[in-house]
Every structure is written in C-alpha cells, then in structure tokens.
C-alpha cells in the first residue's frame, strides 16, 4: 500500500514535468518521422519503418532512465528522500514506488511510437501484441539504469551521465546504422552490452521471428538483473546511512 502511494506520487512528479512529454514522447516521434522520410532516399533498408519503429521505441526508453535518475537525484538533493527514509517505509516500498510508475510511461511510449509508425505507413501486424510484452521487459533494463544513476549520483551528475548513456545506447545499439557495417571490435563491444540485443529483440518480435527473440532477451534480462541488483544494494546502503 505504501509502495503504491509512493508510486502515485512519483507518477505525478514525472508526468507533470513538461520535459517528460518533450523528451519522452515528442522527440522519439519526431525522429521516427524524420528518419522515415530519409528512408525514401536511402540505398539500403535500415530506415524502413519495420526496422526503424522497433528501434526507436527502444531508444525512447533511454529517457525513462533520465526520468528515474533525475527524480531520485532530486529527491536526494532536496532531502525529500531523507524525509521519507525517516518514515516506516521499507526498502522494497521505495524501489517498487520508483520503478512502477515508469511501466505505464513505457507503455505510452510504445503505443505512441507504434501508432505514429502505422500512420506513417508501417503495415499493421498482430505480432505487435507480443511485442508490447517484450518491450515492457526491455523497459525494465532502462528503469534499472535510472535507479542505478539516481542511487549513485546527484541530480546534476545524472544529467551528465545521461548524456554519455544516451550516446552509448544509440551508437552501440544499431538503431541508426547496421553494426556489421563497421564490424570488428566495435561490433563485438556493442554485443557485449545489452542495447544492441534489445534492438535486435524488438525488431525480431515485430517481424514475427520469435526464434530470434530468445537469445537477445537473455542478454537483456541478465543485464537487468545485475543493474537492479547493484541499484538495490546501493539504495539499501544509502538507507542505512
């Protein structure tokens, strides 16, 4: 009950910030539209909506990391976290309270991006239904990174860390170019991180290629567990002072 009360407060804090709408919704949709227009003049099929939309949905989750990290960072710097640490809430209440409101936001991002892609000409597929489930699991990875940044950094540092993070997630995910176009060490490093796997899983599920979803999702889920584990450990340590 306390976790839900806290989740409601966090949802309001995030959704009432105009930056959420701007970065979380408008920017990904704008990029989807711009890149889909570029696809007409491209000699290869990277920017076709079937490939672009699933990747941009994953890209939009990067902003979930920013929202979570900034919220926790601000709660620390304003001593709001100190106020609620003094309450009888347990560590799990905090973590559930911070993570839970991000899932409906991820759902909104998925439906807004997919809806826009349909309007731009992407053919409708029934595979979009299981894709929503897979994408919500992927969103947990980005929520975990947000918890991690918010736990270990101040709100100002979170902004700087996010600038690095968003570059890593875009350049090393294969969203804007095929990773095998560069190949070599770059590609190997990209596939040691979870972001390229997340994009691969998203594209595969939308394409109905269910066999190609499993291995990338194992990478994503393993990273999610590790990042959540570190964030929970750090958060509990902070609670103990």
């Amino acid at each position, binding site marked *: 009950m*306390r976790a839900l*009360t*806290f989740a*409601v*407060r966090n949802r*309001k*804090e995030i959704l*009432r*910030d105009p930056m959420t709408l701007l970065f979380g919704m408008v920017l990904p949709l704008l990029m989807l539209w711009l890149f889909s227009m570029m696809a007409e003049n491209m000699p290869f099929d990277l920017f076709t909506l079937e490939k672009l939309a699933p990747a941009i949905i994953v890209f939009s989750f990067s902003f979930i990391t920013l929202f979570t990290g900034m919220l926790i960072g*601000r709660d620390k*710097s*304003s*001593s*709001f976290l*100190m*106020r*609620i*640490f*003094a*309450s*009888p*809430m347990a560590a799990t209440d905090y973590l559930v309270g911070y993570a839970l409101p991000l899932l409906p936001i991820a759902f909104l991002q998925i439906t807004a991006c997919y809806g826009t892609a349909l309007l731009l000409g992407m053919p409708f597929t029934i595979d979009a239904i299981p894709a929503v489930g897979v994408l919500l699991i992927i969103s947990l990875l980005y929520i975990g990174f947000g918890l991690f940044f918010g736990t270990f950094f101040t709100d100002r540092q979170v902004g700087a860390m996010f600038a690095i993070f968003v570059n890593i997630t875009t350049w090393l995910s294969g969203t804007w170019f095929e990773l095998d176009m560069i190949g070599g060490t770059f590609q190997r490093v990209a596939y040691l991180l979870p972001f390229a796997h997340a994009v691969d899983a998203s594209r595969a599920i939308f394409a109905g290629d269910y066999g190609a979803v499993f291995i990338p999702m194992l990478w994503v889920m393993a990273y999610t567990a590790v990042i959540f584990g570190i964030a929970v450990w750090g958060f509990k340590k902070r609670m*103990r*002072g």
Partner: protein
Amino acid sequence: MEIVIKELTKTFKGRIAVDHLSLTIGQGEFFALLGENGAGKTTTIKLLSCLMKPTGGDAVMLGDSIVENPQAVKKKLNISPQETAVARNLSVKENLEFIAKIYGSDKREAEKKANRLMNKFGLADRAKSKGRTLSGGLERRLSIAMAMISEPEIIFLDEPTVGLDVRARLDLWQILLDLKGQITIILTTHYLEEVEALADRIGIMHKGRLHALGTLDELKEQTGQAKLQDIFLQLTAEAKIQ
C-alpha cells in the same frame, strides 16, 4: 517517558562526528541543539531519527531503542530537514496527503488531516499550488506541516527558519510556540535569538561533544555571560583552546 541518549557515537572513516553524547530530553520539551557548522548537530538528528546507525551507544526514544527497534521509533517521530523536502510537482494538499498515507492514513483520513493542517499553518488558500511555486516562508510552513501530519510524538526541526525574511521567521516562531508542550521538539539552528524565544533547554555541541546543557538562565549562571551569543562564543572558544 523521555528521550534518553546514552554514549551515542558516530564515526566516519576514523573522523568522530558525534562523540559519546549523553543527555535526557523530557517528553513535551522544546530542546535546542546549538553548534557551529560541522559540530555534529545534523548527524545527531540523523542518528535519533534512525536515518543512520550509530557506531556506538544508543538512544531510547519514548521507550524504544534506535538500535534494537528502529521501526517502532520511526512511527513516533517525523522530521523537517534543512532543505524543505517538498515534492515540487505536487500541490500543497497532495504533499500533505502523501505523507499522511505513507504513515498509514486512508484516503479520507489523509484528506481530513491535510485540511486541518492547512488551516493551522495558514496554507488553505494555497491548497492547489504546486510545491515549486511557493515562497520560502510558505515552503517552510508546508515542510513543518508535512512533519506534523503523521501526529508524531517527537519532531526534529533542522534549521527550520534558514533563509526566511523577518516576518516569515516570526510567523513560523508563532506556529512553533503553539506546538510547544504538545510534542517533544528538537531544534537545530544557527539563530540564537530563535533559541532564546523558543527553547526550554539548550545543548551546545562542539566537535561532536556536548559542551553545555541547561536552561538559558542556567547557562548564564555557568558562564557569567548575559547574552546567549556570548555564552556560545565563550563555550566554543574554550573548546578551541582545549
């Protein structure tokens, strides 16, 4: 039932922040903790409000130990931190209801309590204003109202009037004077006139240790000084020489 602090100690990587602090604070007492920056006041508040575990010693807060039963202690207290700790995008009423609910009130009870406190703290006409739009004085009032909504037996006020103009500070003093005797209040501040106006007893900390304890009159007698400012300077200067 009192607050009994026994040999309370906190060290950070070899540096002693609170050094074998022992004192008793009576139920319903308005107790002021004075000290220079880094004297250990905020660390003491964090220890007593179970935000930190002590390195040594204990404190029994109205019957429950901060070491053995911190969850029971947490139910009895609330805190108004140095920063106002108000949720920026929540309205005044939502901030109050949120705190009431995490302390166990249901929706109806939380609303009732929020309305009562908004009236008491002069916030009723700003009920729908977001936290980020409030003036410093109103934000401070809201911060203390948020600490009061759980109906605590002990409240910690960490520099509650810092940054306020004279009128806002005097308004807040009146609110604090109205609370006096109803609950145990532990105040830290750098404003000595605030202590003179509000506190029943005063503790002066320096480098983590308690250097003086008593009513204003007792401290005047101990030091031979007439003003709290001179008492404070004498006690902390002597400590520096030592």
